[in-house]
């Protein structure tokens, strides 16, 4: 029973890692953008939510009504105004530009909010739990986070495979030059893609900040976790990303059960092990 408990808790922990990874997976899948600032954008979302909750008194999850559109606008503007200009220069320019954005966000947050650790408070749901047969207690909040990750990925799958916009996203991902010749404005589409990715980043940021304390330097470790989830799952596969998050979560929980100091290390080791056995991840989709 103890191992079942570990597996369940680990899988639920994976929900937040999958949420971290969705935006990254999407922007890589569509525009081959390796977004080094992704973790900082998660943290930025948390700070935007902090301001909104403090100013309006609404709870963090409700604040997404404002935070998500704000982050969509940030994503759209960053792609349109900045990253679109780096498209033709190969892999390195977008990498450097997003690294620059990462530095700017971290220092901007430090300047504005100081180095204090912050938290968002959602109330009773944070500590509520349900018992399932076998005497295992499951936290309601991790369950909600996991459900949101599943629902988010299902929504993205619907967007990709059932709508005209999704069709255009997949076409651009396959062959951007030919997509242009078929009448698609790639630059506008990329801006929309990063905007949509940022909606998921906003959700990830708020849900993360309810369960964990954060500060302006909290981004890079989220970036690494997101990268690991994406790569374990296989590039370009959204459900793979969810599995990647779950693998990380389970590995960490197993590590923690053996020795609490092993939690983070166990996750990284699982990542390395999978990278050795299956270099392109468990469910690779993206070619090239």
């Amino acid at each position, binding site marked *: 029973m103890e191992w079942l408990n570990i597996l369940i808790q680990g899988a639920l922990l994976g929900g937040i890692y999958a949420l971290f990874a969705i935006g990254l997976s999407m922007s890589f899948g569509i525009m081959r953008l390796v977004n080094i600032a992704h973790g900082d954008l998660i943290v930025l979302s948390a700070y935007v939510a902090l301001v909104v909750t403090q100013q309006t008194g609404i709870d963090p999850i409700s604040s997404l009504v404002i935070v998500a559109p704000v982050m969509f606008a940030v994503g759209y503007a960053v792609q349109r105004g900045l990253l679109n200009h780096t498209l033709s220069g190969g892999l390195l320019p977008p990498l450097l530009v997003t690294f620059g954005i990462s530095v700017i966000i971290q220092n901007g947050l430090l300047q504005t909010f100081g180095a204090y650790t912050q938290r968002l408070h959602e109330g009773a749901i944070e500590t509520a739990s349900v018992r399932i047969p076998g005497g295992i207690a499951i936290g309601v909040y991790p369950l909600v986070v996991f459900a949101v990750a599943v629902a988010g990925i299902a929504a993205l799958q619907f967007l990709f495979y059932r709508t*005209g916009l999704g*069709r*255009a996203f*997949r*076409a651009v*991902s*396959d*062959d951007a*030059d*030919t*997509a*242009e*010749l*078929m*009448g*698609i*404005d*790639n630059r506008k589409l990329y801006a929309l893609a990063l905007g949509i990715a940022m909606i998921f980043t906003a959700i990830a940021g708020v849900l993360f900040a309810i369960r964990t304390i954060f500060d302006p330097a909290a981004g890079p470790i989220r970036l690494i976790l997101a990268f690991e989830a994406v790569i374990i799952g296989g590039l370009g596969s959204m459900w793979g990303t969810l599995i990647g998050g779950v693998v990380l979560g389970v590995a960490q929980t197993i590590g923690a059960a053996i020795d609490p100091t092993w939690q983070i290390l166990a996750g990284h080791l699982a990542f390395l092990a999978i990278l050795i056995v299956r270099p392109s991840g468990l469910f690779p989709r993206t*070619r090239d």
Partner: protein
Amino acid sequence: MTLLRANALSAFYGDFQALFDVDLGVEQGETIAIIGANGAGKTTFLRAVAGAIATKPGMVMFDGEPIGGRPPHDIVRLGIAMVPEGRRLFQSLSVEENLLLGAHSRRSGPWSLKRVYDLFPRLAELRHLPSTALSGGQQQMAAIGRALMANPRLLLCDELSLGLAPVVIRDIYGCLGTITSEGTTVVLVEQDINRALDASVRFYCFQEGRLALTAATANFDRAAITAAYFGL
């Protein structure tokens, strides 16, 4: 009325000049052929017209308007669609999704999914398959259908016969009549000279980025074409 006119069109890949002062005109409703050896600049010409290669505005006139240097998605909206060399279907899209993507610019006109399936009944049977599951000829049909879905006034066809069996090529060229009967103007780029000449009223022979010869196909001189083709 002249639908497409190239005025001293020059085009570059970086520092490399691929086209030198090409003058060419296509009348509304006619089918012309551009022939020439590998590297003669045929594809470059099509890509320049489609906006994939930047040129000066006045170098490409469409329906009396300068369109050189405008982005490809703008040019599709004006009514120029391309069947690219090697088909270039989108691999992760089904056949039908490829066709629907061709209608991305939402131009109105005679072509719809139904009309494309009438023209290529085989595609209707295969419409839910991934485009990678098609044979070369079927892929070429899908690529033509995808371009038609944009309801173009001018259809640019790059090497329709490339890599296909003669009987398949004949089928595909057999469909050109239906397309032109809608009033669509067609530019064929081909290495298969006979095929191109049979289907067109006029041909332009490119050689090393320059226009070497142009004539009506009805009274062409075979020896002159050979000379222009190979630069003898």
